[in-house]
């Protein structure tokens, strides 16, 4: 048997190595190598991430599976994959404006929010990372509390505030409302990244005769480009996944896709296939943007300080 053979030869080799090493005086290098061999992790390290990823993917797979089935098939026979794959559910979404407009609305207010949040957060984060000023610590703490504020507390007052300004059912209303938690987050992340840039760079630039705006755009921004990317990503993420406030502030013209899903489900008597297809389409943008920040995502979650 080849397996048994292999095992004996390997055993032989180990014996040989041990006796060899016992026989000769060991050099430092050899000791280190021996230690490394013994301390090596088991061969099955990949098992844990694999099982975890399967656990994560199963519910998503089920949604994708359902999105390619007809309603009869979903409710009729239980099957692990679609017997007659159909793209009819996706066609419903791409041809009906009340569906695909939801995606456009979501993207519009998410991008607006991202631009507003990051552009106001940039100077503030610079101030926090470089200067001490009156009340800076209190201000930073106050910003943090807004990140922690429960959206449920703000849903009703937001509705009244934006009604008073006549902004209900506009994209800008949702974008501004989401600034509540995204601006503090962006300030935190950017401050973390900016603190990693040595202050000597600023000073050298001033000595070289750079004005502040020119220094900020030409020298500082490229240095924290990854931080800006991560801040954008997190603004995108938290604005994209939020529903409670977005739903409260919109009725028809700016309604996000997530809210359209809940409404259409109750109205059309549970159209499971279309619901699943819409769900799959909300996962895609996230999956796309993760790829760009994959190396920084963990650092971003640690608010830029690892």
């Amino acid at each position: 048997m080849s397996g048994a053979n292999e095992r004996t030869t390997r055993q032989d080799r180990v014996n040989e190595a041990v006796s060899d090493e016992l026989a000769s005086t060991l050099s430092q290098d050899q000791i280190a190598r021996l230690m490394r061999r013994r301390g090596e992790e088991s061969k099955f390290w990949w098992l844990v991430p694999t099982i975890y990823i399967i656990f994560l993917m199963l519910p998503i797979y089920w949604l994708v599976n359902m999105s390619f089935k007809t309603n009869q098939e979903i409710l009729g026979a239980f099957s692990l994959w679609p017997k007659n794959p159909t793209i009819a559910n996706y066609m419903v979404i791409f041809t009906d404006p009340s569906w695909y407009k939801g995606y456009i609305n979501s993207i519009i207010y998410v991008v607006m929010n991202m631009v507003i949040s990051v552009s106001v957060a940039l100077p503030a984060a610079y101030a926090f990372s470089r200067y001490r000023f009156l009340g800076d610590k209190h201000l930073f703490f106050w910003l943090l509390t807004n990140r922690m504020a429960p959206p449920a507390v703000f849903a009703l007052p937001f509705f009244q505030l934006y009604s008073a300004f006549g902004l209900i059912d506009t994209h800008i209303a949702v974008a501004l409302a989401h600034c509540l938690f995204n601006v503090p987050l962006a300030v935190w992340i950017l401050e973390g990244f900016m603190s990693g840039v040595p202050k000597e760079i600023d000073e050298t630039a001033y000595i070289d005769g750079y004005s502040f705006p020119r220094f900020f755009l030409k020298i500082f921004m490229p240095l924290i480009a990854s931080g800006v990317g991560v801040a954008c990503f997190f603004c995108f993420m938290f604005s994209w996944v939020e529903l409670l406030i977005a739903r409260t502030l919109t009725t028809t013209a700016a309604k996000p896709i997530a809210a359209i899903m809940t409404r259409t489900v109750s109205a059309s008597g549970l159209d499971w296939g279309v619901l699943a297809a819409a769900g799959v389409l909300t996962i895609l943008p996230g999956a796309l943007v993760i790829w760009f920040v994959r190396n920084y995502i963990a650092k971003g979650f640690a608010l830029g300080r690892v």
Partner: protein
Amino acid sequence: MEKTWNNKAWFMVLPVLLLVAFSAVIPLMTVVNYSVQDTFGNNVFFWNGSDWFTEILESERFWLSMVRNLIFSFIILAIEVPLGIFIALNMPKKGWGVPVCLVLMALPLLIPWNVVGTIWQVFGRIDIGLLGYTLSALGFDYNYVNDPTDAWVTVILMDVWHWTSLVVLLCYAGLVSIPDAYYQAAKIDGASRWAIFRYIQLPKMNRVLLIAVLLRFMDSFMIYTEPFVVTGGGPGNSTTFLSIDLVKIAIGQFDLGPAAAMSIIYFLIILLLSWVFYTVMTNVDAER
């Protein structure tokens, strides 16, 4: 880093200040207004003192939601934090596996919260869902619509599915920042796997773990969308957490006074927790 004292830095903070004041302070003032007033309609309000606060603080319903929410937060922390550390320790360190693992694990974090709810609502159904169907086929009496225990299991499983990756990512970020020299030293000393974890990896992760625990606690303390979509707070009130209860009172029953008083109490608790978070964080920073 040595920071210079410069009060002109206020001008750089001003845009953030104005924006957040608009979206946080003004709405909060409205809430404060409602919490001390009563109305019989027609926009006529009169002073009501602290009546709403006593009403909320004496109502059993508020405390039950609070207790449910605390139990929920502690259960998910007890599962997600050890599981997250365990998975992070077993992540590949280099090669093509790293980006694949990171992207796939981060995926649940980017799904809109109500879609997360929908996914699990479907996944757990005994007629068309993989989980529910399999459990019933195996002979378990599983039905999250009628059984409070099953509803809790589903909601907790959903949260573990949704947020464990956050703990994994944070711990992973902490782990990769440990220099190789530490491991080499440990190997020369003949340290066991456990000793490496206990004396090298855990201390190096304490900062990110702190962020993970506090973020998870805060977010689970204000969880709304996911359990609302899956169970709607039911069966009965068994999965009605604080935010769900608050929205029920404010928008469902339109009881502005009690809802506002409850918001303020809720917000004060969050404020206290944020303060603890901030103090601990700055202390950890100072120690470095």
